[in-house]
């Protein structure tokens, strides 16, 4: 279907089902149950799942295929956000021109930064991209304040021109982002018994865009261009002596992945029209590296899984505080309850970074192919159980 083989079509349909049904899937617990805090099906978080999924899919085109580890991709995310907010300030509150401008601007920045950084490979390339991103971050805080509004961040105001829209609505407030009138914040709530499911316009826009760019990344992976990128990762010497110029290939991959990042940045701003410099900081660049590796670098679906996993941790796991723990272990004798709470507490709530760090180490050491490899091992194990034979449980197939 659509020029894809059966496996890729299945995967695309799977991702489509997951994203379209996310409001149900992420809200498995009734609203008044004790487990409701593990529900992730609210618009703000669902939007972030798919937006960072897009970011990671793009990053994976560079890192997963060519092996060039960029440590500065958040710069393009930031550029995308600033561009989108400027579009909301100057032109109109429709998200389409804002998203288009963020993709284009991120592409231009990626072309400049990539052109210089790709003169080196390996650790030197990583350091160069990190340096450029930190430079962008610091510039956004200091000399570029007229464009970025420094520490406060770029926000909409009542006296923005908005030449194709209105500066303020009839009741004197700032207009909201929309898609030809459909407000991004508009949410339809469906109550089914004790459950409440939320369907948000902004989320579905992001989800549809995710599906489109996921499809695009499948096509890139399976194309001659994708094969050349894999060849860059495998052996640049042989490429050069096979008459292939590696520079334009890596630069094209860098620009494409930069544009994915810009798209993600533009979508972040479209859901919530403000942009701050911290979006460009090295921690944000590092986060997308974690997502890609955790999910499975070089695999198609891995980065999406990794992004969802990390965002879930960041938003849900971090909410488990001491009183929640006490309510969990409340049925136990007091001494035991306190002991368990003391033992578990460092790993949840504000300690979620530690749990994530431990998980990351475990994945890198035991599952170098990320969550995707984990899934494949489980499937292989189940199959060998079913077959009743003693087939090896691990698989050496490329994780795609």
């Amino acid at each position: 279907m659509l020029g894809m083989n059966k496996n890729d079509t299945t995967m695309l349909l799977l991702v489509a089902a997951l994203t379209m049904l996310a409001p149900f899937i992420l809200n498995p617990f009734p609203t008044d149950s004790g487990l409701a805090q593990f529900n992730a099906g609210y618009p703000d978080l669902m939007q972030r799942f798919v937006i960072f999924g897009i970011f990671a899919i793009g990053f994976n085109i560079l890192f997963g295929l060519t092996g060039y580890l960029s440590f500065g991709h958040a710069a393009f995310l930031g550029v995308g956000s600033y561009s989108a907010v400027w579009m909301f300030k100057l032109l109109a509150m429709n998200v389409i021109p804002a998203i288009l401008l963020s993709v284009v601007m991120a592409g231009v920045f990626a072309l400049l930064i990539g052109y210089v950084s790709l003169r080196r490979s390996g650790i030197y390339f990583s350091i160069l991209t990190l340096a450029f991103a930190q430079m962008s971050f610091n510039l956004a805080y200091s000399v570029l304040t007229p464009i970025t509004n420094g520490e406060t961040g770029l926000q909409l105001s009542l006296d923005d021109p908005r030449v194709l829209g209105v500066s303020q609505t009839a009741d004197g407030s700032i207009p909201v982002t929309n898609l030809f009138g459909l407000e991004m914040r508009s949410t339809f709530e469906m109550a089914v018994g004790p459950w409440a499911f939320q369907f948000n316009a902004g989320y579905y826009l992001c989800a549809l865009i995710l599906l489109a760019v996921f499809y695009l990344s499948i096509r890139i992976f399976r194309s001659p261009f994708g094969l050349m990128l894999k060849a860059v990762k495998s052996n640049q010497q042989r490429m050069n002596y096979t008459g292939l110029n590696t520079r334009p290939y890596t630069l094209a991959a860098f620009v494409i992945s930069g544009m994915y990042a810009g798209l993600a940045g533009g979508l972040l701003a479209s859901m919530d029209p403000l942009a701050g410099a911290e979006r460009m900081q090295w921690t944000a660049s590092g986060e997308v590296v974690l997502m890609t590796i955790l999910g499975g670098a070089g695999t198609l679906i891995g980065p999406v899984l990794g992004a969802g996993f990390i965002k879930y941790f960041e938003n849900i796991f971090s909410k488990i505080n001491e009183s929640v723990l006490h309510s969990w272990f409340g049925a136990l004798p007091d001494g035991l309850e306190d002991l368990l709470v003391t033992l578990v507490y460092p790993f949840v709530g504000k300690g979620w970074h530690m749990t994530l760090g431990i998980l990351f180490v475990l994945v890198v050491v035991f599952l170098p192919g990320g969550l995707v490899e984990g899934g494949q091992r489980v499937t292989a194990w189940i199959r060998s159980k079913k077959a009743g034979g003693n087939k090896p449980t691990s698989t050496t197939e490329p994780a795609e």
Partner: protein
Amino acid sequence: MGILEVKGVNKRFGGLQALGDVNLSVKENSVHAIIGPNGAGKSTLLNCLVGKLIPDTGSVMFDGQSVLGRAPYEINQMGISRVFQTPEIFGELSVMENMMIPCFAKRDGAFEMNAIGSVLSQKDIIAKAEEMLKDMNMADKRHMNAASLSRGDKRRLEIGMCLSQEPRLLLLDEPTAGMARADTNNTIDLLKQISDERDITIAIIEHDMHVVFSLADRITVLAQGTPLVEDEPQNIRGNPKVREAYLGESG
């Protein structure tokens, strides 16, 4: 006039004169061997031919065009393919993919942005790669990971990859180094077959005299960065200067 003309090439590394006034002419459709003791400058000369090094003085002409100052990929696109001492292949990719990449390079040039069409829809490339795999007796290994091939098969694959670009000059850097006798003989047979069946010039750097005398139409002996003598194999064997500089060392 040969297809490859090297004139007055000098190359210094600090105080070391690696190549001193090297002249070399490789005739079209011949097999030309370059031999010499360790440190004679064979590899330096080869690197000057493929663009990895630029000579301090002198000229290197391929088919009437200078190769100096061009990047390795440009020189390759002119029609010079190189086989490395240790097989350089795309280890993480399948044998078939390895064979398709040079076919793409031949058809599309140094860079082509085809990011939407599927690899599997490139019928001409697939047909060509499959034919070359058949020629190399590797058709049954097409789905294998290239890294898991045996040393001899890696060598065959690399030679096949070079041939699928239809080069006019094939450079081989000690193609049988580290190979068992049987693999060496297979490689000799393969190279003989290539030179007989194809319209191709082969230049080979080799230590193994068995290989050199089985293949070469002409031999250049390098010693201390300068060509000592250039002649046909039967004359090289008896040449006292060569015996002293090279063969004498081992015998």
